[in-house]
């Protein structure tokens, strides 16, 4: 049995020895270097560009400007292609843009012999702009007379949707309801994977090869082809080891431009690596959102009706666009079960800011911050018990979502909360921290977490797997689903070993995806891979097993149905007798002069289900009021992601998510110069990604309810841990100080004035 064990990662040895090859490690010497010229205005048009001086710089090979590129608008979101036109992503950008929509838009590219020449050329290009007033917030962008960024989107509204369950207007007429309102804001943050965005491209046999640090190789192939106006088969994408993605690389970033630049220099190898600074403003970010929530609650805490408005800051280009806002809206719909009605409308609005795309948990950290902070505000106002309030209002066991067909099968919320309360000492500390005085105070808070697994039924869910038996009985496996650091390759190998009946050590997964040879898959996003690929692995392994046993029939003169494969041996099902090793069978199959056979299997599984992934976070904090500082004393996340495939990796995944959510709550934010729209903190010194010293011990625990819809009982875990810590911390600060801060991150810049206003300083 392999599933459920904490086996070491299949890539661990290569990673601790420095042998694991990432994109930049594979580049041949003598690559041409490409660099992108970014606009120094936030909104306007490039009128003229003078490249004469730049072109004359020694080492400069070619300069391409926004006036040179084909007029093909394309979309970058890493979604499966949609056959239905209305479902396709918004194609609103060019390889280089004449119409500038953010400070840092791509307006030209230099190809040079080395990076110094390329940088010198960037500085020597003269640009003339026609400038328009910029808009940085959705409110400003939607205002009368605001400059319109994209011609088909009046008032800069990329999308506006709404829904109402029940009859809100009549629901709030009930007598005795208490109305509670609040506005909650979340910041724009960045993924900060440590490996920079990088790709290189060259031409071979009349096709363009792009090697890229991407989460989505097959989708990237499609988008590169679309952006260049080429048949999809003319592009080949290779994805080596990847230094973190977190959703940023679930977008096709600079691969199309890179491919185009190689094409422009006759297919020579061109490398395009962004700097850390560019990564901040020129790739993707998390949507900043603003929620206004109004709740109508009975004095006992039962929510009768709520309404909500969401404004989501899309930035300059659509990327994942309103899909993210829609997911935020679903949190509002599902986490709490309003007795009578709920109503929400959401706007996704273009602004002159970096483009927001996918980032770990896709709109849900924003919504959970709002909904769970608001829940705590209700609890505080009505003097309720936080746990009791949630039990009274949260999604009930047995809930069935008519759209996704998801079912809340188990009492996950209560089971998770129980573990969290016990670990953190909830009851004792809630009592202990009442009525504190003095400059340093402690508090305790919690938050629920809600998520799905994968993207069905909004988008296609499909995974393909190829397996073949080597002559020694070991297994080679390929999937389109990608290893991006989370441990997918290891989990996949465990699943394959489990179903096929071979030893884990005998599963050789090919980590690199190459769209020429890797079966079609969609890639790493939506916490989908263990769930969706699980089906494909199980199905393929069963097909292969059948083939092997069929082959064994010839050798053993026994019926296939009477045999099995266990630990790499063909055994008799009835008593476990080992008939022969799989290795011996494989050798025979490969070289038999009578009946040689290549034992392989390949299959595709289209998944038409989804699964809830629930959890919670409990945080204990110490607030130094005069210094405006919050220190986390203890924090725990508890998740029910079904059966754990590899407990150690699952725990590690939770640590990383908690870290991201803590940063979201306490320190991370992108800051802009209002006058120019320029990003101020585009580096890892000024963008406060936490160091080891900024991290408390991270406790990760699980509730393992075997997910009935899943091939291996598992469901989404990649993203959920990044959801609930920020709100738990915010609620703990409220508990400590009585001050409710509704905008994160809770930096001293925000806490100091808040404490001052509250008379604490």
């Amino acid at each position: 049995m392999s599933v459920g064990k904490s086996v070491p990662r299949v890539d661990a040895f290569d990673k601790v020895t420095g042998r694991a090859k990432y994109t930049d490690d594979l580049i041949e010497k003598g690559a041409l270097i490409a660099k992108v010229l970014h606009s120094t205005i936030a909104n306007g048009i490039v009128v003229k560009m003078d490249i004469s001086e730049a072109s004359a710089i020694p080492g400069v090979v070619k300069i391409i400007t926004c006036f040179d590129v084909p007029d093909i608008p394309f979309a970058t979101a890493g979604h499966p292609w949609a056959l239905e036109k209305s479902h396709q992503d918004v194609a609103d950008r060019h390889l280089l843009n004449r119409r500038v929509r953010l400070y840092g838009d791509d307006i030209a590219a230099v190809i040079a012999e080395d990076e110094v020449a390329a940088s010198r050329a960037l500085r020597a290009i003269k640009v003339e702009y026609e400038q328009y007033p910029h808009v940085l917030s959705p409110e400003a962008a939607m205002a009368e007379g605001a400059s319109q960024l994209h011609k088909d989107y009046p008032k800069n509204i990329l999308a506006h949707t709404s829904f109402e369950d029940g009859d809100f207007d009549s629901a709030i007429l009930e007598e005795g309801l208490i109305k509670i309102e609040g506005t909650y804001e979340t910041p724009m943050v960045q993924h900060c994977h440590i490996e920079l965005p990088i790709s290189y491209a060259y031409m071979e046999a009349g096709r363009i090869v792009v090697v890229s640090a991407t989460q989505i190789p097959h989708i990237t192939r499609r988008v590169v082809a679309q952006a260049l106006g080429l048949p999809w088969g003319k592009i080949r994408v290779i994805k080596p080891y990847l230094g973190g993605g977190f959703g940023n690389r679930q977008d096709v970033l600079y691969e199309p431009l890179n491919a185009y630049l190689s094409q422009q220099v006759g297919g020579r190898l061109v490398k395009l690596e962004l700097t850390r600074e560019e990564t901040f403003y020129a790739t993707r970010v998390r949507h900043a959102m603003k929620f206004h929530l109004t709740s109508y609650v009975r004095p006992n805490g039962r929510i009768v009706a709520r309404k909500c408005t969401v404004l989501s800051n899309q930035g300059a280009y659509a990327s994942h666009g309103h899909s993210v806002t829609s997911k935020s809206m679903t949190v509002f719909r599902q986490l709490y079960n309003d007795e009578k009605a709920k109503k929400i409308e959401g706007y996704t609005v273009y602004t002159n800011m970096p483009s927001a795309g996918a980032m770990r948990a896709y709109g849900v950290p924003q919504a959970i911050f709002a909904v769970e902070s608001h829940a705590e505000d209700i609890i505080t106002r009505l003097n309720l018990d936080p746990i009791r309030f949630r039990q009274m209002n949260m999604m009930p066991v047995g809930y069935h979502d008519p759209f996704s067909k998801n079912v809340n099968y188990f009492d996950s919320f209560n089971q998770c909360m129980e573990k969290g309360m016990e670990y953190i000492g909830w009851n004792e500390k809630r009592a202990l921290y009442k009525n504190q005085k003095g400059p340093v105070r402690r508090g305790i808070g919690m938050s629920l977490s809600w998520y799905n697994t994968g993207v069905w039924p909004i988008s296609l869910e499909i995974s393909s797997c190829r397996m073949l038996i080597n002559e020694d009985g070991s297994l080679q496996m390929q999937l389109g689903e990608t290893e991006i650091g989370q441990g997918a390759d290891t989990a996949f190998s465990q699943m394959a070993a489990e179903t096929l009946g071979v030893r884990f050590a005998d599963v050789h997964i090919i980590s690199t995806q190459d769209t020429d040879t890797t079966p079609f898959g969609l890639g790493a996003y939506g916490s989908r891979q263990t769930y969706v690929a699980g089906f494909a692995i199980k199905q393929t392994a069963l097909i292969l097993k059948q083939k092997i046993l069929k082959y064994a029939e010839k050798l053993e003169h026994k019926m296939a149905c009477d045999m099995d494969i266990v630990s790499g041996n063909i055994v008799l099902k009835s008593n476990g007798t080992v008939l022969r090793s799989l290795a011996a069978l494989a050798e025979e199959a490969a070289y038999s002069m009578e009946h040689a056979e290549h034992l392989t299997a390949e299959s595709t599984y289209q998944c038409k289900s989804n699964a809830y992934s629930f959890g919670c976070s409990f945080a204990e904090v110490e607030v130094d009021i005069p210094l405006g500082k919050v220190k986390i004393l203890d924090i725990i996340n508890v998740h029910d992601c079904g059966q754990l495939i590899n407990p150690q990796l699952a725990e590690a995944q939770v640590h990383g998510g908690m870290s991201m959510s803590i940063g979201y709550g306490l320190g991370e934010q992108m800051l802009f110069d209002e006058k120019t729209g320029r990003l101020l903190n585009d580096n890892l010194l000024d963008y406060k990604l936490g160091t080891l010293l900024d991290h408390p011990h991270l406790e990760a625990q699980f509730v393992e309810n075997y997910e009935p819809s899943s091939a291996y009982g598992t469901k989404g875990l990649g993203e959920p841990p990044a959801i609930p810590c920020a709100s738990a911390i915010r609620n703990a600060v409220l508990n400590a100080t009585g001050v409710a801060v509704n905008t994160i991150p809770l930096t001293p810049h925000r806490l100091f004035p808040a404490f001052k206003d509250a008379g604490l300083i």
Partner: protein
Amino acid sequence: MYDIEALYEATSEAEAIRLMQQYPTAKLIAGGSDILIQIREGKLAGCTLISIQKLDSLRGVSMDEDGTLRIKPLTSFSHITKDPLIKKHFRVLGEAVDTAGGPQIRNIATIGGNICNGVTSSDSGSTLVAYDAITELTSPDGVRRLPIQEFYTGPGKVALKPYELLTAILIKKESYENCEGHYIKYAMREAMDIATLGCSVNVRLSDDKTIVERMRVGFAVAAPVPIRAKSAEAAAKGMPVSCKTINAAAKAALLDVSPRTSWRASKELRLQLVEELTKRAFEQAIILAGGEL
């Protein structure tokens, strides 16, 4: 790859000065943690460099015959922290520079570079001003000494004349003798950050530990350059060791500072920190000096 036009490596102080004369627009590079970053940013792209990185004669800490501590400018932060003389006589400086960046940065960053770049957020500057450090500057015209407060002339500016090299930072015995100091760096992260505000307090108590004979306080980021807060010092001088004295000094510090609002922090927050950190650093320094509160 850095955009460097040309690079010359000095093998002696004299050669460094000669190279400076020969290439008057060249930039001196010591550890590189500032200069290389500015080259990469484009600010100094295409510059000519004179590297003094290998001048081991400018490394280390020693004591002059009169008890003056002599800190050579190329001494890295981590070496300052580990140095036995610093540990014994000037521990707070070792602690202050130990708050800079992270371990790798502290291995490369030099104390000379940290003050020659003239930034107010320097983690050594506030402690050096609080100890009346003296800079020793060597040029073809000879050696001159300048109090560090005069060495800092404005944001990013120092009093180095053309062809002049910082060759030592001196701390007189009367400055460090019978003193205990404490530095608090306030930043948004616990490591790898620059100070939002830095406060370095040192005290000398009476023999019976009841009177503050002398108190000195230096700040980072409370003004365009690292500064001393003389009003705070005056408010504490000769006063009994007490919370009242601490609070009075902390209040008085507000008279000496002039922080500004930037996107990194508001003036109001910095003023709050001036008062609060002065209290906490002063209190800690008193405790270190054997006082009781």
